[in-house]
């Protein structure tokens, strides 16, 4: 992988998304800094309550009521997406940044044939003749391993879930966006189709140079395709870095916990253990570091203050004790006793 540092094409700074609900205000995303470099595949790993999907919607200013973006900026080519005029925002969406939603299989209009939807989507943004659009559509469908002749004339219900997912992927590439956001694109797929989809994503990236932000709850999937990984917990990014650093030299206890908790088909299972505790209750977040109730390295300092971001040349970590984590991992220091019980 090339080491030259390009300028990021998308920069989110201090992004905060709130949901105003009857029970209180929930901060699904808080103070998130995210950079997306051209042509890279960035994986965002987060489990329930992490806020990764909300963040994706925030990046394209599509957070719908009762949620709202309450702070921060998202810079794309010098302009702040959160403050764009409605028409400019519409142009931005799908043309510059496209998004493949979770369970996208149901995102297709059930009463339109696939080819009509493709043409519709393009003509909404650019005036292109139908034949040209269909030509490109056929090209993209072949790229996602579908036969255009069969798929274009079909209605969505005539295709299987896996096929629909790939149709949506082709649809998202029609306008040649610079960034593709994918929210759990493989969740409803079987293992074999999932593996093929990941390969297809790599091919797409290679062919079109489009940057991809891949959101998932399963860290095992990202090992194969990601270049950089950002880990989210309770609305914050707790660690980010190159994929090998994340997997072989994790700095944040949660990242390390995720890797240890991922059961594997190969290798020794003796080091595997679940992460202690329960997913965070976003209405009643613990004081200080949000992860501390489940963290074996937690100290009084963690209870009192949220950790600051520690920046490195290739990533960051937000943890008071990241150096200890490294020491324990390398075997220089014995592991601390694990926290008790399941809260």
């Amino acid at each position, binding site marked *: 992988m090339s080491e030259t540092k390009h300028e990021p094409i998308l920069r989110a700074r201090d992004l905060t998304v709130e949901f105003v609900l009857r029970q209180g205000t929930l901060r699904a995303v808080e103070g998130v800094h995210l950079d997306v470099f051209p042509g890279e595949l960035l994986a965002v790993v987060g*489990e*329930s309550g992490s806020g990764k999907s909300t963040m994706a919607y925030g990046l394209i200013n599509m957070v719908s009521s009762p949620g709202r973006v309450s702070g921060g900026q998202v810079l794309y080519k010098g302009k702040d997406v959160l403050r764009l005029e409605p028409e400019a925002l519409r142009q931005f969406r799908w043309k510059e940044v496209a998004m493949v939603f979770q369970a996208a299989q149901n995102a297709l209009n059930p009463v339109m044939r696939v080819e009509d939807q493709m043409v519709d989507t393009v003509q909404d943004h650019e005036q292109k003749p139908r034949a040209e659009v269909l030509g490109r559509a056929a090209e993209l469908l072949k790229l996602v*391993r579908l036969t255009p002749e069969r798929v274009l004339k079909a209605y969505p219900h005539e295709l*299987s879930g*896996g*096929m629909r997912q790939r149709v949506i992927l082709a649809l998202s590439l029609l306008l040649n966006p610079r960034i593709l956001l994918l929210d759990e694109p493989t969740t409803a797929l*079987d*293992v*074999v*189709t*999932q*593996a*093929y989809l*990941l*390969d297809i994503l790599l091919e797409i990236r290679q062919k079109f140079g489009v940057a991809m932000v891949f959101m998932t*709850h*399963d*860290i*095992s*999937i990202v*090992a*194969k395709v*990601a270049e950089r990984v950002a880990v989210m917990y309770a609305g914050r990014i707790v660690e980010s870095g190159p*994929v*090998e650093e994340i*997997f*072989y030299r994790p700095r944040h206890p949660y990242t390390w*916990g*995720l*890797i240890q*908790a*991922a*059961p*594997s*088909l*190969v*290798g020794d*299972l003796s080091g*595997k*253990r*679940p*992460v202690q505790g*329960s*997913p965070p209750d976003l209405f009643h977040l613990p004081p200080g570091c949000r992860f501390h109730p489940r963290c074996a390295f937690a100290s009084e300092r963690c209870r009192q203050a949220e950790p600051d971001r520690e920046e490195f040349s290739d990533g960051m970590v937000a943890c008071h004790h990241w150096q200890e984590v490294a020491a324990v991992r390398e075997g220089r220091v014995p592991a601390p006793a694990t926290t008790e*019980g*399941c809260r």
Partner: protein
Amino acid sequence: MNGPLISMQNISICFQKGIFRRRTEVRAVDSVSLDIAPGEIVALVGESGCGKTTIGKALAGLHRPTEGKVLYQGQDIWKLGRQAFSEYRRDVQLVHQDSFAALNPVLTIVQSLSAPLQRYGLVPAGRTVRSVVGEYLEMVELTPADQFLDKYPHQLSGGQRQRVILARALSVKPKLIIADEPVSMVDVSLRLALLNLMARMNRDMGVAFAYITHDLATARYLAGKGRIVVMYLGGMVELGPLGDVLERPRHPYLQALLSAVPVPDPLLARARKMLPLRSLEMPDPTNPPPGCRFHPRCPYAEGLCGETVPGLQPEGNGCMVACHLKERIPLWTPCSGVSPSRLA
């Protein structure tokens, strides 16, 4: 007790879809035979549509097989007298994938868990139902139990609900628990906790498990010392002791599956190559392919494969494979990338 705890003998389950002339038949399960010994863990692995859930429900007595018999402790469950059937119902429990749907949304946890205890008279004299329920909650690590007794299902997390369901199953002191994708709706970082709990129940209380899943990695974790049965489109394609089968997979479908499972290790994951299949699409279950059900997708398929259904053949060491070409199919090591077109 000699002999298997529960035994499926040549089970086939067909569903009818549609009415009148447009009636189509779906063979969800085709000629499956499976024995589970007391205290054993068997992993039933396959993708959606392979029939594993239907087998689980047949084991639990919820689907009546169209052909074949389900024997519990040697007797056909569908011919049992009232008393014996009641015992069978108690001994064989089911854990669903969707923990939220498996709990009555308008009952509190203690109300849901009291029902089976009271049904079987399992509350000893001098103790309250609440305290017995509390004891089971503590057994599944929901401590302090008081915090959970009066909650409604929607107030708990997925992992906590699944523990409640395990507690409910445990409370009737079963001999076999059929767990249908128990962890797929739980956060990945918490799955091992539930699997460890199930392993403990197996080890300390001798409860046998039929672990149904599409996730080979968790199957390896839980049933590492047990057996695995791999299903495809209603039929068994390979089975045997899990360690042996995963080390030396013979059926091309299993090889494809193993090569596609994601591995949480970047260097290893990138070096792995998938076994290329001829098609990504699963066939329509109402119209299965003739001969071997896998042959349209199989890279090794030859003429015979499209004509005759391969039966399960023993491979030694308790392993069995259903493939005409099993002798000649090379071992696909995902890291070596041997081209499948070369058969020995």
